[in-house]
């Protein structure tokens, strides 16, 4: 079945566009995996899996469509159905339920009108609390229909009508939630900063903290600052796993699960921390251990890396590559993180040696996409991340001998020379200033161009004469 799905027009088009397709089945079981999530992120994740894995496509789409039909987002429903019809036209779920769609569209419009109307009357009554709730309802409604930018606006309008810190905090969390759905990470970070600044005290604040740091990690990771993301994830307290819903959002189900934190945090840390840090800040971190227990293979990979078993570590990670490619947030950045881990392993591996054969390197660090180990090493050396030289004749990777004494001497000499030169330049300038010489603005109008031309002429003659 998988092969016929793979040949379907949908995946053919995907292939033509050069988009990612995960051919092999992942290790996880779709049902139990998706049971971890609810709300919008569930559909989003199902959609991502369906669109990228021919193996799971049909199941994922079916689940997604079933859930979409329970919601208010008609547009999302029709897109899902259309895509499924391109994959498996014969599937019963691939037929658009037009009566439902029409009915739902009408209902949605009616509800929208009703909410707007209510809000207007609240505004006339000038009761702050009612206006706030009216806006909130409108925001929820927009969110459910998939109109995130309007939802964002509606939540923003709540601000001036908030009367307690709790209200403000809830509003900020809602804003974070919406911007995560929009995947606009700078907004997420801005709103998180605001949430952090709210004047909640004691227990309320403590409840909020794990959520903020987890979302912060997610936003940082998706925005490409992996080291910061690692720090944020590692700082997330284990209370996140059991946290009560805040602002009516069950964060660990509707945004990122504990498993996600373990995977994201573990990978980011593996890619950007050295062995000592990994040992102290990840493995010995009693809070983060709770997360790592959910994903034992990440823990194993980090352990292997710390014990200098780099190829085993890479093997473990490679085994889960497909799983992670089907993760909606990791899909685009996984190759960056994996490459980084691989390069770091190579550098670490090479440190104790003065000379390693290229064949040995190739067997320890097998390449993935048709590149030879030479290319990789060459690139790493050129980027100065690996201090080594390649001997193409003997097939060796050589660590260059260092001579600090010689280096210091020659560095001192070059520095002195450049210092000497810049001092001379300044001397010239000082002299010119002392003599009252300056290139003048007003002269450049007529005289400047004159001299310019004149000089140009003489030089041109000279230039051609002397050949320079």
């Amino acid at each position: 079945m998988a092969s016929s799905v793979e040949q379907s027009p949908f995946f053919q088009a995907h292939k033509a566009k050069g988009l990612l397709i995960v051919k092999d089945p992942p290790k996880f079981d779709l049902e139990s995996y998706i049971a971890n999530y609810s709300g919008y992120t569930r559909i989003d994740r199902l959609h991502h899996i369906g669109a990228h894995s021919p193996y799971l496509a049909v199941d994922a789409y079916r689940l997604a469509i079933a859930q979409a039909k329970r919601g208010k987002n008609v547009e999302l429903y029709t897109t899902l159905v259309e895509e499924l019809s391109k994959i498996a036209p014969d599937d019963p779920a691939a037929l658009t339920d037009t009566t439902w769609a029409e009915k739902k569209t009408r209902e949605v419009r009616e509800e929208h009108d009703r909410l707007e109307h209510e809000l207007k009357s609240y505004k006339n009554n000038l009761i702050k609390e009612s206006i706030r709730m009216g806006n909130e309802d409108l925001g929820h409604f927009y969110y459910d229909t998939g109109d995130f930018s309007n939802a964002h606006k509606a939540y923003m309008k709540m601000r001036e009508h908030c009367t307690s810190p709790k209200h403000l905090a809830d509003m900020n969390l809602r804003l974070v939630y919406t911007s995560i759905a929009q995947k606009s990470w700078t907004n997420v970070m801005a709103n998180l900063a605001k949430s952090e600044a709210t004047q909640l005290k004691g227990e309320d604040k403590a409840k909020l903290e794990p959520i903020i740091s987890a979302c912060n990690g997610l936003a940082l990771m998706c925005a490409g600052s992996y080291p910061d993301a690692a720090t944020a994830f590692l700082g997330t307290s284990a209370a996140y796993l059991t946290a009560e819903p805040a602002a009516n959002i069950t964060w660990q189900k509707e945004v990122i699960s504990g498993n996600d934190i373990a995977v994201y945090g573990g990978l980011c840390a593996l890619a950007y921390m050295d062995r000592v840090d990994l040992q102290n800040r990840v493995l010995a971190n009693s809070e983060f251990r709770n997360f790592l227990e959910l994903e034992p293979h990440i823990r194993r990979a980090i352990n292997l890396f710390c014990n200098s078993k780099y190829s085993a570590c890479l093997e473990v990670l490679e085994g889960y590559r497909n799983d992670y490619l089907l993760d909606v947030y990791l899909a685009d950045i996984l190759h960056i993180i994996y490459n980084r881990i691989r390069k770091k392993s190579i550098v670490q591996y090479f440190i104790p040696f003065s000379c390693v054969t290229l064949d040995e390197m190739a067997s320890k660090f097998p390449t993935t996409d048709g590149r030879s180990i030479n290319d990789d090493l060459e690139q790493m050396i050129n980027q100065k991340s690996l201090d080594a030289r390649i001997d193409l004749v003997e097939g060796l990777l050589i660590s260059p001998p260092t001579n600090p004494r010689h280096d210091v001497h020659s560095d001192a000499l070059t520095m002195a020379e450049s210092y000497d030169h810049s001092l001379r330049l300044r001397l010239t300038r000082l002299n010119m200033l002392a003599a009252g010489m300056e290139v003048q603005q007003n002269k450049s109008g007529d005289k400047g161009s004159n001299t310019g031309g004149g000089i140009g002429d003489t030089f041109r003659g000279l230039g051609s004469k002397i050949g320079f």
Partner: protein
Amino acid sequence: MSADLTGILLSFQPDSPDVEKRRDYDVKARNFASQLSNISASHWSKGIDTEQDVLTILNPAVNSIAYAFALRHRLAAVVEKRNVPDILQPGGALWNQLVLFLETADPVQLRYVGKEWRSLVEWTESIARACGSPSLAIAPMRSAMTRLDPTTGTFTSIHLIFVQLCLETRSYAAAEPILDNYIHTLPTKVPNVVRENLEYSVPCADVVSSGEYMHLNSGHTDKVSLADIQEYYVLGAMAYLGVRQFKKAQHFLEHVLVAPTSSTANGFMLEAYKKWVLVTCLVDGKMGSVPRTANGNAIKTIKFASKAYEALAEAYEELHNMSKLKAQVKMGAEMWAEDGNTGLVTELVNSQMRSYVSRLSQTYSAIPVSNIANHLGAPADQIGQYIETLIREGHLNARLEETDKSNAGVVLRFYLDPTQGPLAKSEKQQQQALFEQTLRTNTLAEQVKDADYRLTLTKEYMENQKRLNKRQGQGGDAMDTAWEDSIDPEEDIMIDLH
């Protein structure tokens, strides 16, 4: 009369005991020079071609002041005429006397006859030009300059004439000794107070900087303008390019770029920048950054006018795509020719391959020549020869060797340890270099101090200082009166607010 003249001429003896003190020497020499300048031209022309000829009686090395006057009057009489007479022709008697004087004159006495010295040097140049062999003037001029000032670091109008002459005659190597001595002083107006009657500041004193006896009043130089100095540096850079001293040329061009400016640029700076972009590529293998002292706005202006050159530099850096540079060079051929930079651009293309090969040393310890040849798209033999020349000329610290292994053929092997190979420097050499550098830097520091001192003598500095003093004084006064005047402190606060 002629005997009289001789008597007067010999009356100043630099070695006599009564001029042992610097100040006495100064007064005597000064009086002697003014005495000589009052003698009319007719007196000087007496006794030519006889035993009594002053030029034969006087010794240029001892009686330099008198000799300079005599020579100048003699030349002035002859030069007026259209045709250059035989005795003036290079090889003629008078020419020989002139050259002898310029090469052997007493440096201390020369400090008192600035005007004469300058005319003599300028005539040397014009005579040589008039005879159609300008290059003959180069050596005498150079010795004249070093004779007067061994550092040749005080800029004179002679500097510019000299460089122009060298470039015209394409004798770049001849210009090098002068160019290598950087300019540390510009002739300025030195106030008389500092100059006269001080034991250690009179011109004949053993001074650190030649700028103390060569200034605008001493007559050694014509008035120099900024354009003169910039022209000197641009031409000097071109001379360095002529002898393939790219690094020195780069430094010279930078001197043009840092000229003080009121946020505007002139033609020299534009010209210099264009060359600088190319030369920097040749020196560093990539485009560098303009010296920080340069004016930002001025640089922006000239950058805007030199886009084509910057594009070349960018293409140069793309070592994996060499055809791009060639295409760009071809596209702009007219422009390079018009700016007189064709030679430099060609040099750029040639050196790109060198840049590529030396970049390899950062990645490989050994690489078969055939691999390089594949990348460059040229036959292996040719590349092999090319690399051999690079090694010979000292661009690569590497060796070529034959291997019998895995049909690799000839292999380029780099020396990884900086203390090995043909370019290696022993620690002793390094130490020596460091030692020399220390000396150079110390001298430079002295000269900077000197320049700083000169700056404190300028009118602007004095005025600023005066103003500062005044302000301080006034500030104190104002505050005092404020305290006395204001009876109600609150009102005072209000005044401050307004």
